[in-house]
């Protein structure tokens, strides 16, 4: 049984090619974060190693179980922050990782029938690492499968893209995620629907938020600050920018997530302004959103959304995080006492 939710046509195709032994040796899984790429990759590793090929991946045999519990010696996940010796500050998958994989790939599988290397966040590969991988990617030794996962396909080298079979995982419909949450995580309907809406079609996020209340707790805190900042003075805005700036240097993804939260807040404001309130994501904040929306003109909302997008882009291009965020905080429409 494939554990990935949704994506049925894609799974049917994959299932068929694995059972018939006609699968590719290098795959590229494209899709937004938490949409199920990692789960699918693990499932694929199980499928090629499974001891009962008819039901592969059966999820029951020793191979499937060892892979699922990340104990399998032949299935390796390479990603940022997972490397040896490096702390969470690792920003890229380096050439050292690729060399190690080449070495391992040249050895026969240890306990399974295939070695599977999963690059989680393949866009984080340094250019030299990517180039070093090309040879193995194009013609891996027999019994080796390489799976690249990415949410930013455009950031990969064209030479990498052309060497992989591409599978795209699209966000799932809200209803499907809500159904999944109700059925397998026994949530009540209302909470499930809200999580499904917030998940942007990515079941991984919804499931982890369902299991870990601190995720929603953190979101609430961040949204409180976002909503307050619109009515606060220069001092708070500068201190917010500086906090977020220092977070960015410690945890880029965390800071980006907060900016995306900003983006969604302002998206909701725009929807309310234009009378399409039923589509907003932050349904639990609709009262506050309505209040804020009343204070702003559509033009102001659109302008600020552009500012957020520019800020995200500037950060991706290694702008000084604090300055970029200060510019954003200053462009925030609304009251600015003392300035």
């Amino acid at each position, binding site marked *: 049984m494939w554990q990935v939710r949704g994506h049925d046509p894609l799974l049917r195709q994959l299932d068929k090619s694995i059972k018939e032994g006609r699968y590719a040796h290098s795959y590229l899984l494209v899709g937004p974060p938490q949409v199920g790429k990692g789960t699918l990759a693990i499932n694929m590793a199980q499928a090629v190693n499974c001891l009962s090929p008819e039901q592969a991946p059966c999820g029951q045999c020793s191979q499937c179980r060892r892979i699922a519990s990340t*104990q399998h*010696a032949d299935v390796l996940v390479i990603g940022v922050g997972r490397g040896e010796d490096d702390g969470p500050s690792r920003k890229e998958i380096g050439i050292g990782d690729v060399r190690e994989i*080449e070495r391992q790939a*040249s*050895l*026969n599988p240890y*306990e399974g029938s295939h070695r599977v290397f999963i690059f989680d966040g393949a866009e984080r590969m340094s250019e030299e690492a990517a180039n070093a991988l090309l040879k193995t990617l194009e013609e891996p*030794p*027999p019994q080796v499968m390489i799976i690249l996962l990415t949410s930013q396909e455009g950031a990969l080298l064209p030479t990498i893209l052309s060497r992989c079979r591409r599978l795209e995982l699209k966000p799932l419909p809200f209803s499907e995620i809500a159904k999944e949450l109700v059925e397998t995580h026994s949530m009540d309907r209302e909470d499930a629907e809200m999580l499904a809406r917030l998940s942007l079609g990515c079941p991984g996020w919804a499931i982890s938020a369902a299991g870990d209340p601190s995720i929603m707790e953190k979101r609430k805190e961040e949204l409180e600050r976002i909503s307050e900042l619109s009515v606060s003075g220069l001092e708070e805005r500068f201190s917010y920018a500086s906090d977020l700036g220092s977070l960015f240097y410690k945890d880029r993804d965390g800071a980006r997530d907060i900016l995306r939260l900003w983006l969604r807040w302002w998206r909701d404001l725009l929807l309310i302004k234009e009378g399409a309130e039923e589509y907003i994501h932050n349904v639990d904040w609709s009262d506050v959103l309505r209040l804020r929306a009343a204070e702003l003109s559509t033009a102001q909302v659109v302008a600020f959304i552009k500012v957020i997008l520019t800020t995200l882009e500037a950060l991706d291009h290694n702008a000084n995080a604090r300055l970029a965020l200060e510019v954003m905080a200053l462009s925030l429409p609304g009251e600015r006492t003392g300035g």
Partner: protein
Amino acid sequence: MKLSCLQENLSRGLATVGRAVATRTTLPITQNVLLSTDRSMLKLSATNLEIAITTWIGAMVEEEGSITVPARLLTEFVASLPSERIDVSMAPGSKSLSLTCSRSEAHVNGTDVDEFPPIPTVESGLAAKIDPQAFKTAISQVVFAAATEESRPVLTGVKLELEGGKFTMAAADGFRLAVHNGELLEPVGEPINIILPARTLSEVNRLLGEQDTPVEMTMIPSKGQVLFRLNSIEIVSQLIQGTFPNYSQLIPQSYQTRSVTDLQELLRAARTASIFARDGSGIIRLQIMPGSDDQSESDEGQRSGKVVISARAEEMGDNQGEVDTFIEGDESKIAFNSKYLLEVLSVLERGEVVLETTTPSSPGVFRPIRGEKKWRERGVEERKPDETYVHVVMPMFVQWS
């Protein structure tokens, strides 16, 4: 689990498997060692997913059981104990191993055996038997020539071919090639052709020690693993996939100059030259010169002469040494990297070395000499090389002034 054993046995066993304990790893449990009772023995196993080593030590087993514990912690603790009896116990259901020796006691927290990668077993397959000391010689003559850089994984391995009653071991790194031909104790049923990681053979070499009972080697080519069975030690290694370059065509079939030299004299001169070579791109030059006068015993074109070994370091200075030799053919010049020259001279065992050269830009070939006599006492026919070993080194290009 409850048993007792001697400190020195446990310590030795842990040291044996210790080399297979992973150091850098993506699977943290491979830093553990697996302890399990096996009839009246204690079995220790470790694996780094490339090599797995298992050894058995004598123990009084009262209760069976198994556990994995951090290898380094256990090894260091046991090594620090006095040479006395150690009582090892683990309560059923617990994951803490208790060790008591003399007046020391320790508790080591372990992890379930299920999480440990399975130690590969090779039940049956193609088997071969090799004399341990002959195998050690073969390993030490070949393994150093394997590549250490991983840009071509096959070259980090050693090619092992078994056919009939013979085995051939070969390694190459793009600049040199070492090939050893040896004899098996019993002919193999079908030919075997594998590439082993160089590290595996180094470990086998180390663990063989003074052993005099034959090494058993078993292979299951389909699983890509090979098992070496030594005295109470089993080493299972993954094989390297790929095609090893066809090395036989790299061995020059002819030569213009063949010199036979006393190995120790040549080695000493090469060591001296390497001191200067160190600061001069590592180049050692060899000039092989037939004697100038006709007093040379010119039977079948062979005559005495000398090898001039020199090295030069710009701005530092230079040196030059001479060694007597016996030459067949013309005068010749060749330059080698000092590391390559010293390494091959160091693994040749017998008293004389044969060097075959053609031009300064074609590879030099080193071979041991057949038989035990001193070269000065040899007749013409006895100055032939031994076919058991051949070492080809690419020359360095230098300006010969």
